[in-house]
């Protein structure tokens, strides 16, 4: 189960001669901004306090991120 819906995963080529045991997969993030060409007007907004906490006024532009250290990666 992915913790972050913006996360993409792939399994890199594994050689039988790799020196180290393979990690399960590689991950990278595709943030929400990649799907917005021009922000439409009148999007729903966070309350001011919530907006400060999230770093953006608009829930649809919020991008979560979880530390790989915290995920045990």
């Amino acid at each position: 189960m992915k913790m972050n819906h913006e996360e993409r995963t792939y399994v890199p080529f594994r050689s039988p001669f790799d020196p180290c045991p393979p990690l399960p997969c590689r991950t990278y993030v595709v943030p929400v901004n990649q799907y917005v060409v021009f922000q439409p007007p009148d999007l729903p907004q966070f309350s001011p306090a919530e907006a400060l906490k999230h770093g953006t006024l608009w829930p649809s532009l919020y991008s979560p991120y979880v530390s790989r250290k915290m995920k045990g990666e």
Partner: protein
Amino acid sequence: MWIYEKKLQYPVRVSKCDPMMAKFLIEQYGGADGELAAALRYLNQRYTIPDKVIGVLNDIGTEEFAHLEMIATMVYKLTKDATVDQLQAAGLGAHYANHDKALYYENASGVPWTASYINAKGDPIADLYEDIAAEEKARATYQWLIDMTDDVDIQDSLKFLREREIIHAIRFREAVEIIKEDRATRKIF
């Protein structure tokens, strides 16, 4: 000119004594994709960008200085009470030899900041695409920094900064859309 507000854009709390994290955070202070480079890049480019999008560069460039202060605060808090032994153990011995505990515009490897990190091509498309790339690179740097600490309070501030990079990238993309529009074309309806 600017009006200075004597507060941080977002609170910075550091809960774990981890001077080594200061060494890594300095990447966002004086690194190629750091906040200083970002602020100077945008505030310089704004003079030769079409009028319609000058404000975007002006406002984002200004905000980058607010981010620079947040990073500086983190680095200062992480190092101010460190002993010389702790600094050496954290890999900051070379920094101490040159700067004591002073902050310096350098990257995580100790390379001093240089103007060659930033560009000003004078071509609006080229400059705005550089700005978009700079924001995404800064976002990625914040991710790797968040990955390297388990201090949830530092993570909280870094996540705020990461989100701001994402929003800035949207604004630069919108700026590209604005200058792409051909306003000289006469439209007959």
